[in-house]
């Protein structure tokens, strides 16, 4: 695990990857095991249909709770899933370069015969690998839970929703890593990226029902992540490309800037 920067970074975050993966798997199990109870609760959907639109935006409409996919879309892929994955990604992203710089270990690392671009890309690779572990664990949790609870779950829908969640996590993590690499400031990297996530979530969820703010949802990462309810309607390639493109621009800018700036002691 000490062969290169990529493996060393994975080694550094092995506990974190393990605990967050347990978390996503537990989320998958909990929600799928809980689903039959909600499905069988009579009167609940009638109640939902009578709610004003703003509350339906908040907790889901009737369809949300009558199909397994709708339920998982609301319970896993609208809030809890993105929250866990984003927190993991932002922490890993800020630690990657700005974190090493602030704990004064980057200087010594870069005194080795290795280019800054290589360090940045290997650390990005480690982050993407960690996210993959969280995603696979979530998938296992969801599929295993549905089997135990005895209902059918669309495997393609689930896979696509997880893929979309993975892209969101990668966007948040690499954005944090990029800001950290470009500035060397961990707090700034974490703060800005968390802001992008929180504002994105608010714009896409609560504020989507405010007509004046409707156009603003296009600047939300959450809009591209799951506005079309991937679990139910499949992945939207254009939306995914928007996130991948944003991430690509961020990483490319970070590579350029990191290579040219001074590293602090």
């Amino acid at each position: 695990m000490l062969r290169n920067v990529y493996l060393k970074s994975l080694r550094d975050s092995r506990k974190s990857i393990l605990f967050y993966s347990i978390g996503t798997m537990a989320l998958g199990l909990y929600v799928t095991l809980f689903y039959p109870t909600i499905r069988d609760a009579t009167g609940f959907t009638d109640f939902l249909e009578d709610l004003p639109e703003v509350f339906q935006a908040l907790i889901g409409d009737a369809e949300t709770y009558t199909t397994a996919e709708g339920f998982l879309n609301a319970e896993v892929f609208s809030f809890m899933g993105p929250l866990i994955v984003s927190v993991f990604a932002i922490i890993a992203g800020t630690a990657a370069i700005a974190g090493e710089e602030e704990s004064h270990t980057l200087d010594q690392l870069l005194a080795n015969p290795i280019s800054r671009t290589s360090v940045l890309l290997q650390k990005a690779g480690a982050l993407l690998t960690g996210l993959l572990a969280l995603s696979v664990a979530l998938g296992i949790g969801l599929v295993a839970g549905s089997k135990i609870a005895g209902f059918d779950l669309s495997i393609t829908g689930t896979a696509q929703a997880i893929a979309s969640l993975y892209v969101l996590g990668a966007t948040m993590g690499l954005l944090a890593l990029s800001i950290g690499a470009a500035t060397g400031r961990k707090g700034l990297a974490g703060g800005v990226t968390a802001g992008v996530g929180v504002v994105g979530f608010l714009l896409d969820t609560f504020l989507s029902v405010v007509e004046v703010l409707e156009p603003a949802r296009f600047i939300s990462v959450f809009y591209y992540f799951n506005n079309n309810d991937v679990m139910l309607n499949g992945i939207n390639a254009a939306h995914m490309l928007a996130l991948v493109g944003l991430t690509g621009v961020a990483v490319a800018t970070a590579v350029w800037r990191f290579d040219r700036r001074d590293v602090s002691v």
Partner: protein
Amino acid sequence: MTEAISTTGLTKFYGEHRGVIDVDLGIREGEVFGLLGPNGSGKTTCIRLFLDLIHPTSGSATILGLNSQADSVRIRQEVGYLPGDFVTYEKLTGRDLLEYFANLRGHGMAHAESLAERFDLDLTRKIGELSRGNRQKVGLVQAFMSDPRLLILDEPTSALDPLLQQEFHRMVLEETAAGKTLFISSHMLSEVEIICDRVGIIREGSLAAIEEIATLRERVLTRVEIEFSDPVSAADFHGLDGVTDVVVSDHRLTCSVTGTVDSLIKAAARHTVIRMESAQPGLEEVFLAFYSDDADKEGPGAA
């Protein structure tokens, strides 16, 4: 013969703050060079510029014939580096850290193990649990372990006890015998004069002088105090070669000497000497020697 380090007008500003200004330096391969200056004078800035950890505002540096910025990866393959404050992954054991850096450098652990043994360093302990001196040993081992052509060491012996300083001096001798070049920074003349061939004096970011150690000694003022059994006359000691500031009170003489103390000793020998003390010149005295009127005539920066 190629130069191990060569800089032309090397200048670094951190925003408004001065790092180094217009440094022209030429260090021969196989030489042990000391960069001497007080804290904040720009020693570390020079070193970080050589390793491309920071980029020059203007001017350039050539390390082992390669451009410090364009060829930085190839340069670092050939350079061992010990920073002034060796901070590294605290959760790794010494062995893990050395293994990691050895992997990044593409060599094995044999030399690292033997160096650790030589320093009596326990590699199984976590770096965060080590004392400052032991951590410095890890730093020295990682700098020397790749058998680099050029060693750049920032205040290498600051945390070492006298025994280990001696061991370090032996290592420096072995490296020079093997044809290696060493660049060592320090704020203590006593540290560099034992191991270095030449010394550069840096002050407020500018290189004030580059001197052979022998020449430097000649120019540095040594304070000498001699106690005689009988009262002596100041006239006996005036006009002696290199002797100034003669003060005689009763049977006690104090004076400053530049260069050799020979003429003073011979003059003193005409009397019965009870006790003689000479103070190791500190950095202040070295600077005084270089910024006195005499030094100005020859011009600071004269190599």
